């Protein structure tokens, strides 16, 4: 297995009076796509937000490359080369597709070659370049959110339920795009409820329940073991298959 890019050790997160993450231990290997699974309310989104500093961990360490980022603030963490595709997509509706991407490109204007690469698997981004992003369809908004995250080479991309609520044709389009993204040396940590998508994309997998990681291993092993799937993921995933 590849060396770890991101390691959470004993991470606790409180939101107000609620104790949400209760000692998360998670290893995200460099260059791989790690799938984070688990039923609704297990704490997957909270885990991603804690990594990015949008919630502050109340205990534990979050090691990214060689440093502990657990107590740093969000802009500093993002500037280490970590991008985020939130569950809500977080696009700026009043800004055009172009303006959304201009903001996402931190090192200067978006790179032409990189843009062409993105346009190849997300053609609507080119077509609606000057359109306010609020007018895009749900699938196109998701494409924009992902395009923003990869407009520059990143070390780690955090993606929260990218296929949620989208039509099957668009989901397949996204799966192809992620497969292409995996060819670059980008490390991805993805939350996904659609087990078909999760199975086809994941290299490694971690399953959360009640604020803890309850299983970690290779995706291929989990995909081959129906009994384990049922035990870990229960009915919530089967319903999506």
């Amino acid at each position, binding site marked *: 297995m590849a060396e770890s890019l991101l390691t959470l050790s004993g991470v606790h997160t409180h939101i107000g009076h609620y104790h949400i993450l209760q000692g998360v231990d998670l290893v995200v290997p460099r260059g791989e796509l790690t799938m984070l699974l688990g039923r609704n309310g297990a704490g997957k989104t909270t885990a991603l937000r804690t990594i990015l500093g949008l919630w502050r961990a109340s205990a534990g360490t979050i090691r990214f490359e060689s440093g502990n980022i657990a107590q740093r603030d969000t802009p500093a963490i993002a500037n280490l080369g970590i991008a985020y595709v939130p569950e*809500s997509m977080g696009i700026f509706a009043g800004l055009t597709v172009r303006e959304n991407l201009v903001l996402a490109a931190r090192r200067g204007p978006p790179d032409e070659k990189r843009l062409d690469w993105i346009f190849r698997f997300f053609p609507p981004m080119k077509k609606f370049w000057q359109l306010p992003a609020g007018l895009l369809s749900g699938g196109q908004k998701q494409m924009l959110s992902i395009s923003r995250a990869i407009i520059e080479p990143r070390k780690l991309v955090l993606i929260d339920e990218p296929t949620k609520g989208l039509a099957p044709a668009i989901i397949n389009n996204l799966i192809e795009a992620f497969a292409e993204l995996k060819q670059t040396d980008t490390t991805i940590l993805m939350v996904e409820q659609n087990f078909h998508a999760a199975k086809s994309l994941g290299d490694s997998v971690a399953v959360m329940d009640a604020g803890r990681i309850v299983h970690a291993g290779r995706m291929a092993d989990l995909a081959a073991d129906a009994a384990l799937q049922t035990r870990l993921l229960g009915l919530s995933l089967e319903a999506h298959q």
Partner: protein
Amino acid sequence: MKRIDWIPPALLLAIVLGALAMIGSPSTWVTLTVAGLAMGLLIFIMASGLTLVFGLMDVMNFAHGLFIAIGAYVAASTIRLFAGAAGADSFLANLGAIVPAMLAAAAAAGLLGLAFERIIIKPVYGQHLKQILITTGGMIVAEQLIHVFWGPDLLPLPRPATLRGSFLVGDVAIEKFRLIAVVVGLAVFAAMLLLLNRTKIGLLIRAGVENKEMVEAMGYRIRRLFVGVFVAGSALAGLGGALWGMYQESVTVHIGASMMVLIFIVIIIGGLGSIGGCFAGALLVGLVANYVGFLAPKIALGSNILLMVLVLLWRPQGLYPVSKQ
């Protein structure tokens, strides 16, 4: 290919034309329309910063009127310094007095805004009740400080000679100073549109008003952006206060507070956080106030509130709602 919602501008146009039909006399109508535009643009200058401050950080600053007052007082003192230029009988010489006065007003209000943000606003981010209490308290303290510096009495702010009176075009009288307010107001609006649409800082401000968490997740520090907007908004309020003081030819410590009701109405009508909405709302308030004041003086006092109620019944989020996540 920006999509612009043309309904509010069409509504404004309809009101302007409807007023012509109701007033009957074209010359009166022109005078009232110019007065309404001037008043609207002055309010826009003073209100634009406040709407962005609220949109970016959800900060309710009830002391915004302070920057208006400081602008007016500093303008009065500056014009005194430039008494020679102000008293001359040449338009250019007079400009040589009021331009420094406006710049000094903006600079003083901007500096005060910087200090105010650090000392008063920063400790109460995210706490609305405390913001209302502490900014209202800060306003009271600052008004007392103004008394210490400038005295409690009404301070005259005489307008330079060539800026008094009116142009007569046919039988239409247009007050000169209102034209200056219109020109400055349009220049501020144009500069703001350029900044917001053509620069990366402008994009960040627009993005931050929609979703500041995402802006931070992209690696930008929203706080720095906010301080910049706060200072710029304070400076504009100071500029507006200078113009308003010159228009009234006198300044009291309440000059800012007395504008705040109108300013709040304008930013609520426009849609909190929206510059385009603030502009349209300010013109709407300015025009309607002047038309109603002429046509039905008895209801003039309540007309702004009535206008706000009608707009909110039609568009509860204001003329140009900002999509928030």
